[in-house]
């Protein structure tokens, strides 16, 4: 077990990388669909001039978000191995598979299509460009599915079994794995919240349209309607906390503001069975052939993850006493219950504000007069609401999963690499510095691309 400092720094480093990536992903995903819809409208109606200016700036924003999202992905790939080497070994067999399928089927394809999409608008005919845009949307949505399959599996793991020879969890059935009951709901929930984030960004651009409100009205109306539908659909919610698993039940209890300690007896039972599974595992490692031990282990091995919770209280898990088992069970409850409770409430409040944003914009877009500067400022502030809702939802999901990296199977602290606090500190500082520079570059580019009409983004470099 790593020292607390190393564990905390590793967690913060991962959270930092995740948050940075999360800033750009909803925008990229949502804008891709909105741009495809607008481009289709232009194609059919020939009313390109209505949209041209906001559309052009939207496209620039999309290009920037795409590049930033891809770039911010790199440190995440590094994190799993560098800071979570035991995590990578212990669950990599199942966890890494969707990530690889994502790169193969979505990410590289999206990057390949992004080149001609971004640079080939004048070279390709309207029809080819539109087809390319929709293919790009498809690639990005496929990509999101695989990523969310990994996330779903972390929250609600299925189709894995512990292999005592390899000392890790191994995939038992790919069909069950891919049909994780959580994934479709999570995917749709993430997609619609991304559309809401993108629609909010479109509204801000329309409100700040330098050519005037009249030219941007139809774009704003389209974004507001998309946003209203998307926000309405987010109300269906992420199905994860409603799953019949102990970790999710505890999360749901905390979301409802109830006392999670009522789960302690059940947690203690799991820890006891986990310790028993660990004892059997030790005997099994001495004698691989004993079928009776193997059968007992097979019965109890789903609780093995709970045995790792004992390690901070007794390094020799097999010798854990009742008090240590109680302490381990206590540690299985999320350490920050108030963060979960208030993040959830913040998510709901931000969701309601998002509805206000879209409804208000839709009403304004139907009016002939341009909104006042004060109204534009209010709406611009409200445009942060969908992001706030998304980030709050992410916090509920991640804090609600604690202390687990993989719910019920591997505690976060156990997955961390063996490092010294100095190494972890240097690594964290390097990440922090690089992320600040990265954000500064992104911020400057966003301002330049959106506000400077003379910039040509049909050429790279």
């Amino acid at each position, binding site marked *: 077990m790593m020292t607390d400092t190393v564990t905390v720094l590793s967690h913060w480093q991962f959270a930092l990388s995740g948050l940075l990536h999360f800033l750009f992903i909803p925008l990229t995903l949502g804008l891709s669909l909105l741009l495809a819809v607008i481009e289709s409208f232009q194609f059919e109606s020939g009313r390109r001039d209505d949209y041209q200016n906001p559309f052009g700036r939207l496209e620039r924003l999309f290009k920037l978000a795409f590049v930033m999202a891809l770039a911010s992905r790199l440190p995440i790939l590094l994190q799993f191995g560098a800071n979570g080497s035991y995590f990578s070994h212990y669950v990599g067999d199942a966890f890494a598979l969707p990530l690889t399928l*994502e790169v193969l089927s979505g990410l590289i*394809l999206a990057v*390949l299509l992004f080149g001609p999409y971004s*640079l080939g608008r004048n070279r390709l005919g309207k029809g080819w460009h539109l087809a390319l845009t929709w293919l790009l949307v498809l690639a990005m949505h496929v990509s999101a599915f695989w990523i969310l399959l990994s996330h779903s599996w972390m929250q609600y793991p299925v189709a894995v079994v512990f292999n005592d020879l390899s000392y890790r969890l191994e995939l038992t059935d790919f069909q069950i794995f891919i049909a994780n009951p959580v994934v479709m709901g999570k995917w749709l929930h993430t997609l619609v919240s991304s559309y809401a984030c993108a629609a909010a960004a479109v509204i801000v651009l329309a409100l700040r349209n330098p050519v005037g409100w009249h030219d941007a009205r139809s774009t704003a109306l389209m974004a507001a309607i998309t946003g209203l539908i998307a926000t309405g659909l987010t109300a269906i919610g992420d199905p994860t906390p409603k799953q019949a698993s102990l970790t999710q039940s505890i999360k749901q209890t905390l979301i409802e503001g109830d006392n999670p300690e009522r789960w302690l007896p059940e947690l203690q039972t799991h820890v006891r069975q986990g310790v028993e599974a660990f004892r059997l595992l030790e005997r099994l490692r001495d004698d691989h052939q004993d079928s009776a031990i193997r059968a007992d282990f097979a019965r109890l091995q789903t609780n093995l993850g709970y045995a790792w919770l004992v390690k901070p209280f007794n390094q020799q898990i097999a010798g854990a006493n009742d008090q240590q088992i109680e302490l381990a069970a206590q540690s299985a409850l999320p350490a920050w219950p108030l963060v979960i409770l208030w993040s959830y409430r913040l998510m709901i409040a931000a969701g309601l504000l998002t509805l206000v944003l879209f409804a208000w914009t839709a009403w304004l877009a139907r009016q002939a007069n341009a909104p006042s500067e004060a109204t534009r400022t209010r709406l611009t502030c409200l445009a942060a609401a969908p992001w706030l809702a998304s980030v709050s939802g992410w916090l509920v999901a991640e804090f609600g999963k604690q202390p687990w990296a993989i719910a019920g199977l591997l505690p976060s602290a156990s997955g961390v690499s063996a490092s010294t606090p100095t190494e972890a500190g240097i690594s964290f500082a390097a990440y922090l510095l690089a992320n600040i520079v990265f954000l500064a570059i992104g911020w*400057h580019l966003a301002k330049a691309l959106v506000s400077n009409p003379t910039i040509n983004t049909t050429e790279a*470099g």
Partner: protein
Amino acid sequence: MMTTDLETLRLLAWAILMLATVGVGLLEGISSGGLALLSAVGERRDHGHALIRTLAPVALLHAAWLMLFLALIFAAWPIAYAVALHSFRCVLLAMLLLLMLRLPLLYFYRQLPEHWQGHACKLLAASGLMMAVGFGLLAGNVLKGVPFHLDSDMRVAFLGDLMTLLNPFAVLVAATVLALLTMHGASYLALHTYGGVQLQLRALQWRAGIGFAILLVLTGLWISHLEGYHVTSDILTKAASNPLAKFVKRSEGLWLDNYEHEPWLAVLPTLAFIACGLVVWLARRGQNYWAMLSSTVCVTMTSLTFGASLFPFLLPSNISLNSSLTIWDSSASPIALAVTVCAAGVGLPLLAILSRWGHTGFAASNWHDGELDTPPQHPPISSSTKE
């Protein structure tokens, strides 16, 4: 049935890993090698810009191939991924953070304010240099052996530090890889640029080629005396993955074992050497297309030589020999491996073809959108830049 298949799956996964290694060498090699040249070419601002404009439209694709490579290792060899990333984290941290900054700076270079462009140019050059040197350092340390240990729970302990990774052999390999990638980057850039910058690149191309040839010979000589690794116990090709279930010995010259058992493998380094010679000769004759083709062969053969020498090792440990990772004892489970092999077996060749299209179809159009037949107009070439 499954255990019979596991051996084949592991071999196929290794072949796919080699393909991905070649892909990364060829593609990310262009970006890294090309950007490393910025410090040499970028003295004239317009020359530096020409390099950036040529690399910008393909740099995202190159980074995506690097991600594919990492993801493939993670899926097919989870513990190798864990050990490699944990052990090399200092070097990888610098490489990947610079790469992260590189992508937006390169793609939106002209959108940066004037006073940022100079700094961006330096950062881009540093990123190219760091990537090329980093690849070499990693390769050198893999050949030398990495100071890691696996305990009975398979927890990884890296027992070295940054200075351990900067050993003389790894530094020599880093210099070799730097020369190779700058030659490759210059070959690609010379093919897509015109005028003075092209002449400058050609000069760098053959110089880097000669440098690579000399360093390749030196590295080969050192490897023949370097301590290699050999599995002394029975190799259980179909057993569950457990790196600790074998015995490994280390002895001088063992990395040449595979060439003794399969003499035809000597074709790989020989072809690398010949292709390098061809790059130098063709670059001097100004035959850019054929020079690029030879450079591609050179990078491919060098990558395959590296893989063939190591086989069946993925990551040897020089502190705890039996902890060394081979393709037989560190793979994913049969189901995960089968899915990975099937997906990559179909996807990788397809992506390779599409990547080729990505380079020919749109990289060139970045110069003059809609005017593919017209070479870009550079400012007049001063006599001082002519070779």
